[in-house]
């Protein structure tokens, strides 16, 4: 039982990382119909960036803030320089382009930070032991970040005028225009949100899972799997899906074999796509591709 709870706790904290990435993916997908393969690389970029800033002597909160802002800006830059330049953004083109961006980001990280994984100093706090289940304080930070950043993005989309217009802008550009959002602004905004969510995930997870140049792809893909569970439109469903995915991975690693852990996400992906491509929790008329 203790093992079960231990694995669940580990799964939830891992799932919170996937959840943030899923939120970022949905943000860009709803506005631009782009599945951003580079989403996970935002996370590693922010992680590595903050590690360098901390080792340069900056206090941790400052380093994190700078990393978040720079990765958000980098995401916007990618949108302006690469994505926005394509007139006819077909699925094929968007996938090749974001794959190119992802590869480029990885290569840059490899050249700047080297091939080895690095670890950000742990955030302040003491590890807990609840009846034999040990919970690292960093894991609480991860869940907390999901609640604050993920929840904040959710509130923005659901409660603010801009957020609602942004959601609508994919299908109803007019609605977005009424609030004063041009498609270009909507796209920039979506990429900024994606950058922020990815960066937050990367910074908060680095003390446990390390930041390594090549790690973003798999993270992003798992975020995508979570996003698919939400039909690529529902933030809430994606967050729940991400946490479930994290827990399920943890169970497979614990009870089956750790090597199969990474396969879980893709088996789920393929099964879900084949059985219910519109996601698990969706009304029948939601947007399909």
């Amino acid at each position, binding site marked *: 039982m*203790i*093992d079960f709870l*231990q*694995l669940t706790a*580990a799964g939830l904290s*891992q799932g919170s990382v996937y959840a943030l990435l899923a939120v970022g993916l949905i943000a860009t997908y709803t506005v631009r119909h782009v599945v951003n393969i580079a989403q996970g690389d935002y996370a590693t970029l922010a992680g590595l960036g903050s590690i360098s800033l901390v080792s340069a002597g900056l206090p941790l909160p400052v380093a994190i803030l700078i990393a978040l802002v720079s990765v958000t800006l980098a995401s916007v830059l990618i949108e302006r320089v690469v994505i926005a330049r394509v007139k006819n953004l077909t699925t094929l083109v968007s996938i090749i382009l974001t794959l190119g961006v992802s590869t480029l980001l990885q290569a840059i990280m490899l050249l700047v930070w080297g*091939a*080895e*994984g690095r670890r950000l100093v742990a955030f302040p706090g003491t*590890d807990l*032991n609840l009846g034999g289940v*040990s919970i*690292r304080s960093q894991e609480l930070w991860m869940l907390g970040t999901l609640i604050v950043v993920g929840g904040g993005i959710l509130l923005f989309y659901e409660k603010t005028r801009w957020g609602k217009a942004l959601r609508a802008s994919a299908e109803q550009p007019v609605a977005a225009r009424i609030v004063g959002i041009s498609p270009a602004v909507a796209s920039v905004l979506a990429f900024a949100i994606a950058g922020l969510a990815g960066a937050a995930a990367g910074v908060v997870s680095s003390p*446990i*899972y*390390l930041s*390594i140049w090549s*790690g973003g792809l798999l993270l992003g893909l798992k975020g995508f799997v979570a996003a698919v569970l939400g039909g690529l439109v529902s933030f809430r469903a994606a967050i729940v899906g991400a946490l479930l995915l994290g827990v399920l991975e*943890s169970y497979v*690693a*614990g009870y089956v*074999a*750790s*090597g199969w*852990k990474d396969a879980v996400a893709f088996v789920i992906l393929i099964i879900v796509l084949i059985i219910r491509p519109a996601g698990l929790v969706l009304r029948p008329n939601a947007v399909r591709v």
Partner: protein
Amino acid sequence: MHRAPRRLLVPAAVAASLVLALTACTSSNFGGGDDGGGGGDAEEGPIKIGAVLDITGVGANLGVPEQNALNMLADQLNEDGGINGREVELIIKDNQSTEDGAARATTQLIENDQVDLIIGASRTGPSLAMRPLVEAAQLPTISVAANAAIVDGSEWVFKTAQNDLVVLERILDDAEAKGYTKVALARDATGFGEGIADIITELGAERGITLTATEAFEPSATDFTAQMTNLRSADADAVIIWGITPSAGLAQAAYVQIGVGKPVYQSHGVANSAFFEAAGDAAEGVLAPMGRLLVADQLPADDPQKEVIDQFIADYTEAFDSPPSSFAGHAYDAWKIGVAAIEEAGTDPEALRDAIENTSDFVGISGVFTMTPEDHSGLTAEALIMAIAEGGRWNLHEE
């Protein structure tokens, strides 16, 4: 119509680019690996020694110091006039810590560079991948990886790292002395960790020790929660973590965080300072059998290896501003054994192999080597000391 000639263009472009790119040159592309060591037994020109190392990827903590050591030793050798007056050319290839990378690099060394001797690879998996290639080419090869499967029954492959078998003997002896009866294992999922559980079961039976749980982890893993959770519930007296850095260090950190609280043995795969970077405070008190290199300053003055080790540490530290790891030592041993054999027998592959097999009482970094046609490893349990992690370094453990 106009379409047909237009479509000729792309093939023509392909053709032109091929022709332009494939510039004429000297070496034949038909000089295969079937003629017993290629053109390697030439009596003139530089002697070529190839190395296939895990310079990048999960084995980088091993391959980089090995690369450093080989470069340093090659420079030293050439400054001293090479081997019998012939310059030595060292060709190092990165296998990116992959098996097929090792195989590709080996093929290139054999077919293109026509080397006389190969050193490598850093880890067991890539070394195993190289084995059939060098055997087919009949080329003496000295691996710097650990698993006994690399050399078992091989005519052409040698190795300089201590056998997993003797390392485990050392660990289990210690465990027996402390009265442990149950151990649990977390092992590297690649070649280095393969067969370890079987050896523990076998050796443990003689000592009244049973293996209660086996977990595996990828060398690229960063999350070990699941494995450590299972070890915690394995009800063992001690835990053996068998891997290389950084993964074995990260596993150690996770082990302590989960709060298992049983003593830990690690393997000689963590015989470097990178272990402490990865494990942090969690390293404290870990026991690991390893060569004498990392505890050189604590060796008694009469230790037969002390002089060699002190010299190597001095040279390496001067060249690279950091002390060498055990892996640099494995490379040193491979180089010295190989060079000595070439000095004696030249570059004829069979003669060279025989000369390596005749290596006797060679005092190296990892131990004192005595090779035979049957034993291509050459080290005994004597080569190992038990070290304990204390205050961010390895210390000699008083038993």
